[in-house]
Each structure stands twice: as structure tokens, then as C-alpha cells.
């Protein structure tokens, strides 16, 4: 049995995710779409906190809601005037989009409700079943070389980010 506060928090965040993600893809002003996406990212961060992954929630808010959204807003302001509106969708394209999205929702919901993996554990049970995620454990996960420890991917990510910095400078530089 979950606490009432958890259930209320779940409903607020879930409705925010559903409403704002639909508004992100239907809004005609691109800057507004970016703002709605920011709300979706923050709501997903709240889900991470609720599921007991505090570090992950902090990373989500710092990297996604902080870093990536700033990039988006800057690039939107660099490439178009903020009061520009996207043209209305032609009916053909909109029909394809709605068909694909509704078919996807139907297919995935059908798959979800026939999934044999679900054994009905509640959030409180799961939170007490696993150990608390401490910073010490996260540090050992990323710097160890034993089984289920990830030093090599961690280093590969650092090389990827370096390549990304150099690539970004090279691509966007004025010639």
C-alpha cells in the first residue's frame, strides 16, 4: 500500500508529462514547444526522485533541463524570430502522423497489459526491497573494473564528449 502523498504526486506528474508532451509536438510556436519540453524533462526528473534515484534526478535536471534546454533556446533564437509560427499542417501529413501515433499507442498499450513480467509489486515494497543508492556506490560503479562496474564505458564517454567539443567547434565555426 502506497502513501496518499506518493499517489497524488504520481498523478500530478503523470498528467503533466502527458499534457506537456502532447503540447510540445502540437504547439505552432517553436519557443513555446521548447518550454513545454522543459516541463516534461522536469516532470521526468521528479519521477526519478520518486523512484529513489536521487543522483539520476539531479543529473536529469542539471544536464537536460539545464544544459540541453539552454542550447535549444539559443539555437531557436539564432535561427528564427521568436514570433514566427509554423505553417498549418497539410491534411495528408497530419493524417499520417495521427495514424502512426494512435497505432503506436494502441500496440504498446496492448503489449503492456498482456506482459507476463508484471507481478504487481508496489512502489513502497520495491523501495524497501533494494538497497539505498548512495554516492559511494555510484562512485564505485563508475570507477571499478569488476563485474557490473563500468570504468571502460565511463572513459569512452569522456572521449566521446571530447570528440563532441571538437566536432561542435569545427562544424559551427565561421570560415
Amino acid at each position, binding site marked *: 500500500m502506497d502513501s496518499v502523498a506518493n499517489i497524488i504526486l504520481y498523478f500530478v506528474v503523470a498528467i503533466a508529462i502527458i499534457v506537456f508532451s502532447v503540447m510540445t*509536438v502540437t504547439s505552432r510556436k517553436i519557443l513555446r*514547444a521548447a518550454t513545454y519540453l522543459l516541463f*516534461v524533462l522536469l516532470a521526468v526528473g521528479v519521477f526519478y526522485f520518486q523512484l529513489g534515484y536521487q543522483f539520476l534526478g539531479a543529473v536529469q535536471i542539471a544536464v537536460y533541463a539545464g544544459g540541453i534546454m539552454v542550447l535549444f533556446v539559443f539555437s531557436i533564437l539564432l*535561427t528564427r524570430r521568436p514570433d514566427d509560427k*509554423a505553417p498549418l499542417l497539410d491534411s495528408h501529413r497530419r493524417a499520417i*502522423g495521427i495514424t502512426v501515433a494512435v497505432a503506436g499507442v494502441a500496440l504498446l498499450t496492448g503489449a503492456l497489459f498482456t506482459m507476463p513480467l508484471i507481478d504487481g509489486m508496489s512502489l513502497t515494497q520495491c523501495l524497501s526491497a533494494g538497497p539505498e543508492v548512495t554516492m559511494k556506490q555510484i562512485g564505485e560503479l563508475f570507477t571499478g573494473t569488476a563485474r557490473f562496474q563500468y570504468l571502460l564505458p565511463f572513459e569512452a564517454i569522456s572521449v566521446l564528449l571530447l570528440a563532441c567539443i571538437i566536432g*561542435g567547434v569545427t*562544424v559551427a565555426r565561421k570560415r
Partner: protein
Amino acid sequence: MDLTMLWYLVPSIIMFCAGVFGFVTRKNMIALLLSLELMLNSADLNFVVFNRFLFPGQFEGMVFTLFAIAIAAAETAIAIAIIINIYREIGNTDINSVKKMKF
């Protein structure tokens, strides 16, 4: 009333399909990138939910999500650099006007 795994997967489904809708219908490249972020986020949320509800003693879902966030940040930065470069060359960011490298 219990919050089971299903409850967390339903918003994730809606988020993913909203991303697919945006990816099919939008023409502005930055709007396409926004839809892509929606789909990536729903996949990340799924990793974390499966980790918490099916394997609460392990951390693989969390670690994978951390790596996915780092790669998504790199991908977005490069994509935005490319989009700004295209805007300098042809003056807008409409996908239908980028035809030079199509064939």
C-alpha cells in the same frame, strides 16, 4: 491503491508516441530534435522503471540511463551545430530545403 510498474509505463508510452507524431509531422529541424528528445526521455524512464520494479537490488538501469543522458547531450550539441551551419548556408531550417546531400 498501489503504484505498480504499469502506472509508470503509461505516461512513457504517451511521451514516446507524441515524439513519433512530432517527428513525422514537423518540418523545422529544431522541432524534430525536440521530438527526438521526447522519445529518448521515454526510453530512459523505462530503463529506470524496469530497474526499480523488476531488479531492485541492482543498478544497471540507472547506469545505462546516465550513459544515455551523456550521449544525448553530445548528440544534441552536434546536431545544433549542424543546424546553425545549415541556417548560415541556406537561410532557414526547413528540412524540405536541404536537398544538396540527398542523393
